[in-house]
């Protein structure tokens, strides 16, 4: 009787030890390991956010580069609506030059984004590569076409993506 009880107890202890060892293996293989870090670049992994930034920044860049010497006030208001405050202050000197030169030369610029892509996407920042075609007319001169590649840094403020930097490449 005593022998049987000892045998059952020993079997139970062996079984429990096996389960405990297995549990330790599980912990070692990942049970307590942190999950792998998500990708740093979410471009087209987060499809909804990718579409949102492309859909918002593409027309914003077109508005940014398009202006008519007769509507410069309106143009500045449009730029203010699509840029961050930081970037707005960066470009203020350039806008002053446009305000001075454009009426004198009767400059009209029409910009079109002909292709848009995402270089990188984080939860509230993005970097885009846009191919932009511009047509510039001045008084008495034929239109001058211009094809550029522009890297745009965008920042998300609330639900809205705004231009936070532009670089010709």
């Amino acid at each position, binding site marked *: 009787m005593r022998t*049987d009880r000892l*045998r*059952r107890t020993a*079997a*139970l202890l*062996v*079984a*429990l030890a*096996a*389960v405990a060892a*297995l*549990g330790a*293996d*599980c912990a070692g*293989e*990942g*049970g307590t390991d942190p*999950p*792998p*870090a*998500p*990708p740093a*670049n979410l*471009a*087209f*992994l987060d499809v909804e956010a990718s579409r949102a930034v492309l859909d918002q920044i593409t027309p914003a860049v077109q508005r940014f580069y398009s202006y008519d010497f007769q509507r410069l006030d309106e143009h500045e208001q449009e730029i203010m609506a699509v840029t961050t405050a930081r970037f707005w202050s960066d470009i203020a000197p350039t806008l002053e030059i446009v305000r001075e030169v454009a009426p004198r030369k009767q400059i009209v610029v029409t910009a079109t984004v*002909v*292709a*848009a*892509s*995402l*270089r990188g996407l984080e939860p509230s920042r993005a*970097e*885009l*590569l846009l*191919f932009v*075609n511009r047509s510039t007319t001045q008084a008495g001169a034929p239109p001058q076409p211009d*094809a550029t*590649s522009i*890297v745009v840094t965008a920042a998300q403020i609330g639900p809205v993506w705004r231009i936070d930097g532009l670089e010709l*490449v």
Partner: protein
Amino acid sequence: MSATARVLVLAALVCLAASQGCASTADGGALPVVGNSTAELRDESVQVAEQAAVALTSLDDRDGEAGYDRLLELLTGPARQEWEQRRAELGSDTTTLDSVATTSGVAAFDPAAATSTVLVAVTTTVSTEQGATPEERRHRLQLSLISTPAGWKVSQLQFVE
């Protein structure tokens, strides 16, 4: 069944369940693992697009047929047919072309359909044999890629005007 046998069967069942749970845990953070491999797939398509854009804009006579071979290796479908035909049509040229991919971005990416569209901006330095000052040209390319058993291949490419 003896008490000892019952204990051992129970222990075996617990071990089995634990081992299945363990496998699932090891595989698991399913989303991050899938996310990372999908990100790698996307990034690989960008690398191949950049290689093809540079190969395409660097074609010259310095290395004879090797340049075309490098380009065609990256192409498939209509793009490959088009450039096989161009290879036969294009004659000798005395210029040398050195290209670098300035930057690139993903315009579309569908891992389920195994397709990707990539924009690449390329800067090419053009030199003539006469030793004139090299000229820099900028190109904008859009490349459509499909994933094949041999990796990403460019199925369509176009210069964006």
